[in-house]
């Protein structure tokens, strides 16, 4: 195997395993992730002094099993990642393809809203929206999804323009195909590999953004075990028990790294170089 394919493989394994864990979360959790037991607060993980195999990753400040919460947290992160890219991918691709295909005024309008979106400070606006509407999983997904489409729009616009200059689009036009047909049957299939790469980039960003929002207290509401929220809850106790923030932080970093590796690997093997 070539050296360049190793990152792709590692990324695919990380994302695949996390996705499986997320899907099978209810079957995998050793304890109820919401069951509190104040007599068993901050039990250390099994590999440390004072830990036991009863709670492999210890317990949190309310005595809830950390491993169970981590597993359910994978579900939340994956859900956020997938749901937001479906939403933002749809918005961005529609805008980008329309702008790239029609050009002229349509394109100018698309670029105008893209630059408006870029000028908006992402975290601040997301925080404000979640504060006003009230925090829930749906609100977080909608907020991030509605804010994170600009990369899809920019890339799909650029590649649509490229594709539209190619002979097969001209041939389809000459053969009397409608615009809708050309866009859905000729253009989209030929830009989809670029979109897949962008999807991985944005999925990673969405997951990190959700974690940041939850960390700041305006993301996924407790008692749901978002990894960002777990770090926020453990923050005040980190000086005594560093593992309460280390475990969810490492989980988050590994998942995002996996997604990025997957995206990078796909970029190379699909020949979709959008880096430049």
């Amino acid at each position, binding site marked *: 195997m070539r*050296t*360049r394919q190793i*990152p792709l493989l590692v990324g695919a394994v990380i994302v695949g395993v996390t996705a499986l864990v997320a899907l099978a979360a209810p079957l995998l959790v050793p304890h109820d992730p919401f069951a509190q037991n104040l007599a068993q607060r901050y039990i250390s993980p099994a590999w440390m002094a004072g830990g036991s195999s009863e709670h492999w990753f210890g317990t949190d400040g309310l005595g809830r099993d950390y491993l169970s919460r981590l597993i359910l947290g994978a579900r939340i992160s994956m859900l956020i990642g997938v749901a937001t890219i479906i939403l933002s991918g749809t918005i961005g691709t529609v805008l980008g393809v329309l702008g790239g295909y029609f050009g002229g005024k349509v394109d100018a309008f698309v670029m*105008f809203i893209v*630059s*408006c979106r*870029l*000028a*908006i*400070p*992402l*975290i*601040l*606006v997301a*925080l*404000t*929206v979640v*504060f*006003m509407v009230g925090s829930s999983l749906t609100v977080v997904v909608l907020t991030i999804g509605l804010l994170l489409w600009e990369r899809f729009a920019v890339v799909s616009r650029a590649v649509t323009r490229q594709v539209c200059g190619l002979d097969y689009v001209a041939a389809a036009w000459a053969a009397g195909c409608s615009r809708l047909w050309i866009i859905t049957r000729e253009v989209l299939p030929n830009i989809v590999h670029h979109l897949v790469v962008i999807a991985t980039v944005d999925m*990673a960003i969405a997951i*990190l953004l959700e*974690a*940041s929002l939850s*960390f*700041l*207290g*305006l993301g996924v509401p407790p008692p749901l075990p978002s990894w*960002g929220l777990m*770090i926020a809850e453990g*923050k005040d106790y*980190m*000086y005594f028990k*560093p593992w309460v*923030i*280390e475990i969810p*932080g490492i989980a*988050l*970093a*590994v*998942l*995002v*790294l996996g997604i*990025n*590796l997957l995206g*990078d690997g796909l970029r190379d093997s699909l020949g979709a170089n959008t*880096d*430049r």
Partner: protein
Amino acid sequence: MVCLTVLILSFGLSRASGNLAISIAGADASAEDIAKINHELGLDRPLPVQFVDWANRAAHGDFGESFLFHEKVSSLIEEHLPVTITLGLIAIAVAVVVAVPFGILAALYEGTYIDVAVGVVALAGQAIPSFWLGLMLILWFGVGLQWLPIAGLDDWTGYILPSIVLAFVAIPVMLRMTRSGMVDAMRSDYVRTARAKGLARISIVAKHALRNAAMPVVAVSAVQLGFILGGSVVTEVVFNIRGVGYLAWESIGKGDFPVIQAVVLLFSIIFVGLTLLSDLVGAALDPRLRGR
């Protein structure tokens, strides 16, 4: 044009939130109190009137008074902004100093294990959530080694950890840009010519390739500074730094809309300004971009 839209947006954002007066007066306030507060704050006028009034005063630098701090928003921001800007500038400098050399290194050894290693480290850097990195640095350097303060900006040592965390956001992007720019440059005709002339490798890299590869990086650092400032909320909360980001976070949590409006608008304008600056710097450095 973009500014105007953001203006409308930042206004709409804060007025879409139901009854402001109730959140200030408390849930059990009487209807009279609420009407009084509404009137005092001018919230009983029609929305377009409120907007035009607000935008007009905002254009003159008057964002009204904070509901909670009972201080002029402009002076609140004036008080908090220098810290955020200073940190942002230090961070972007750190990012350039780290990203450019490693980008060059990766490009010169393109396709080797060094290149792959730099790429993976950059990806890993991108994967680490900045608030978590901040907390871990506090644990290692603040609590474990006790080298640096864990919060606040009492002296210059307080700036070290926050600027590292802020720089982390920009490093992977700038590293990749440097790398791909250098890879292109090293393959170009003028580098081949320089080689054929028998120039030393160091002078080829520094004089010929880097000058061309660095241009987009310099230009993009202005945009990255915008992202860094926008992301300052998280870092300032982690390190308990009283900058604009912290101010905004506090205001959002309490529904202090004049402040939120002003900060969102401020960051947007700064971002638009930096994007423009980035274009200008790009054009100044690269004559080929002029007149396009």
